[in-house]
């Protein structure tokens, strides 16, 4: 008895043997799904060079030596004198890790010492300029108090919550 996977493995055999073009689009779709779900099948195909096709192998002439000389000169003039290798970058990262950890600890200590000193008012004050209030509607029993200042038309709007323990402006 053959299973669907046997059939897919048979299709894969044909691709590995260089007969990719013999498959139908539906078979290709099925095989693509099989390969993505089956690492062993994917490994079978990984080292295979797809079959060459003489009709698709026409190669345009390569650049001349003069072309290459120009390209090399530009590459050479733009190249850095020394590039940090992955190993050097790794060393740098290893060196900075403990330093960054120490700095983070120091910052936490400073914040812990400073935080209690910062007292927050029970309400939040927000200052806004160039604001036009067309309608002021208060919900849930809160009340508003609008205080106009001077002659320039600026106003402060106070909104008090029902229990009056907190308020906002």
């Amino acid at each position, binding site marked *: 008895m053959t299973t669907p996977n046997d059939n897919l493995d048979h299709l894969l055999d044909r691709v590995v043997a260089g007969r990719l073009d013999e498959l139908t689009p539906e078979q290709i779709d099925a095989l693509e799904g099989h390969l993505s779900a089956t690492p062993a099948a994917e490994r079978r195909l990984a080292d295979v060079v797809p079959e060459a*096709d003489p009709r*698709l192998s*026409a190669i345009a*002439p390569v650049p001349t030596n003069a072309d290459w000389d120009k*390209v090399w000169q530009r590459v*050479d003039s733009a190249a850095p004198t*020394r590039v940090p*290798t992955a190993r050097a970058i790794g060393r740098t990262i290893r060196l900075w890790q403990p330093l960054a950890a120490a700095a983070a600890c120091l910052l936490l200590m400073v914040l812990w010492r400073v935080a209690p000193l910062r007292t927050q008012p029970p309400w939040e004050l927000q200052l806004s300029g160039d604001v036009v209030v067309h309608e002021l509607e208060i919900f849930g029993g809160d009340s508003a108090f609008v205080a106009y200042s001077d002659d320039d038309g600026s106003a402060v709007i106070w909104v008090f919550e029902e229990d009056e323990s907190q308020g906002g402006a």
Partner: protein
Amino acid sequence: MDRSNVDSLELQLVEQAANGGRDARRELFERHRERAYRVALRITGRHEDALDVVQDSFIKAFEGLGEFQRAAGFKTWFLRIVTNRALDLLRARKVRLAVPLDAGDDEPRLEPPGGNRTDQPGADLERRELADRLQRAVESLPPEQRAVFALYATGEMTYGQIAETVGIPIGTVMSRLYHARRRLHGLLEDLAPRGATVEEK
């Protein structure tokens, strides 16, 4: 020389190039330039653009040698840079072409490298015409299929290497290559060898 020797020699070159070795860079340049050019040409379709892509890719590669992971292999890593750069250029060109141009000079085409080789005799001319037809057909492929086909057309990359270079699963490489070849066979039907048929036209 077996592959491991080639790889270890290449790793030495990469190490020396990263340390500023000009000769090592030159050697890497000479080893990989033609393959890179063919990939870039397949994707961009123009000699000048392909040379620009190769140039920019080498500059980027030499600047980024620190990021090179030795497990990947320099060829695969470098061709990824080439492919991405060529696709970027293609996208930029498409944006540019969205603006109507009256002369039509930006029509993708394969220009003869070297410029003045048209006086060369028959076989070379025929070969170039075939290459030109193939290139025009390749230009009708969607960019993602074109990139896979360009790497396949180097004739030396495995499904796994193409997948790693483009950053897609192996099954997707197979699928894109299948559809690319199918389309190209249809477009180049008259080039089919005697007795050969294109499947399921």
